[in-house]
């Protein structure tokens, strides 16, 4: 068992597709919250093999895409402070803020370093005691516990030159805001697999209960996604709405309680601004006051000035599932991976990037 190739078997995929074809009668729209699911759905050609009755929509689950320009501007302003080393996950560098990007200020001399793990940022801080190292804390529940662990380690090692700019966001409140907006009607939710490893499938129960929308947590292999679609179709056809797991080898109902505890220790909920969705209450995470000395917002006085949105870019509509990327007048013309105008064209799991890469432009 390698937990990968077994779940890509085309013979088993054909069986699942045939089951979906037999049981699906009602036209349905399922949203995949997670950008990694959008990538998997395109990479494995899932849209092409599903019956006409089943439509999948991309959701807001791309942390880089939903980061507001105001936050990006803040990071860029921080990176420009002399003596600061900005440690960031790679994709963020190319995302344009209001006026420039981290990549551009790095070219101008700012010390911006790409990290693979929060542990790398700690190492940079240890090796550069005369510099201030700022870790760009970005991500949903999958990533947040790792940043919390790094902050606790910094405390343990009494590091005084390490802080985190927290852009961390919570997935369930975003999904709630999206449903409350009434912008998009959904018949089922493909719940994020790796967020749910941490939160547990329990995090999605309110959607089934309060909105009557079937929810199934999915893994990222093609068979995982097909099984998820099959389970959602079955719920719709049987007139039920509950939370199920199509990724039982990785996800449990209660989630990873060790990771939840770490997040809870270091972070507390706060309102957060989401690109395209405005400010959503209790959807962000900031450092608790007792960890204030590791909070870059408190360590530094940052004033990035007024923000601005790129003209013509419809990233907001794309993130809400209201418009597909191809509806954007900039898509594939002005805006492409070499010259991204909006964040969704930068991130390797952004909807626009994924559409562009896998030829979704002709859909």
């Amino acid at each position, binding site marked *: *068992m*390698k*937990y*990968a190739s*077994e*779940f890509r*078997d085309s*013979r*088993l995929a*054909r*069986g*699942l597709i*045939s*089951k979906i074809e*037999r049981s699906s009668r009602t036209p349905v729209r399922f949203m995949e919250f*997670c*950008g*990694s699911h959008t990538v998997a759905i395109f990479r494995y050609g899932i849209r092409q093999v599903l019956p006409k009755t089943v439509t999948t929509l991309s959701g807001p*689950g*791309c*942390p*880089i895409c939903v980061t507001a320009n105001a936050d990006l501007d803040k990071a860029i302003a921080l990176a420009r402070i002399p003596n600061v080393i900005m440690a960031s*996950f790679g*994709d963020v560098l190319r995302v344009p803020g209001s006026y420039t990007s981290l990549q551009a200020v790095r070219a101008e001399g700012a010390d911006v370093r790409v990290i*693979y*793990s*929060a*542990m*790398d940022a700690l190492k940079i801080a240890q090796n550069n005691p005369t510099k201030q190292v700022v870790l760009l804390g*970005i*991500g*949903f529940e*999958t*990533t947040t*516990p*790792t940043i919390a*662990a790094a902050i606790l380690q910094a405390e343990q090692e009494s590091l005084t030159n390490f802080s985190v700019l927290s852009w961390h966001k919570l997935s369930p409140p975003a999904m709630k805001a999206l449903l409350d907006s009434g912008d998009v009607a959904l018949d089922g939710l493909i719940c*994020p*697999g*790796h*967020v749910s*490893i*941490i939160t547990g499938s329990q995090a999605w129960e309110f959607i089934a209960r309060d909105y009557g929308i079937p929810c199934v947590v999915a893994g*990222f292999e093609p*068979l995982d996604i097909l*099984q998820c679609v099959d389970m959602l179709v079955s719920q719709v056809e049987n007139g039920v709405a509950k939370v199920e797991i199509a990724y*039982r*080898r*990785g*996800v449990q109902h209660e989630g*990873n309680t*060790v*990771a939840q505890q*770490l997040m809870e220790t270091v972070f507390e909920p706060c309102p957060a601004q989401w690109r395209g969705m405005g400010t959503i209450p209790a959807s962000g995470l900031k450092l608790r006051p007792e960890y204030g000395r590791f909070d870059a917002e408190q360590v530094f006085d940052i004033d990035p000035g007024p923000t601005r949105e790129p003209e013509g870019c419809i990233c907001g509509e794309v993130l809400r599932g209201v418009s597909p990327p191809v509806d954007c007048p900039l898509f594939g013309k002005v805006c492409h991976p070499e010259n991204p105008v909006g964040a969704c064209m930068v*991130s390797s*799991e952004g909807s626009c990037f994924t559409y562009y890469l896998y030829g979704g432009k002709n859909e």
Partner: protein
Amino acid sequence: MCVAIPALIKSIDGQLAQVEIGGITQTANLQLCPQAQVGDYVIVHTGYAINTLDRQEAKETLDLFEAIARVAQEEN
């Protein structure tokens, strides 16, 4: 961003494990997954193991897919 991949734990030294992903050995932090043992597959995200994978559940899921594929074959 939430990309995470299955990795096999080869050895553990304190909180750090050496894990193998597609023939390449990497270090993974086990702080979020203290129950993990040598020989387990874990899901690794940005250098941290976030859960162990359940072999029994994986097997049951694949058995279910086999049964579904058999039914589909018979019907066609």
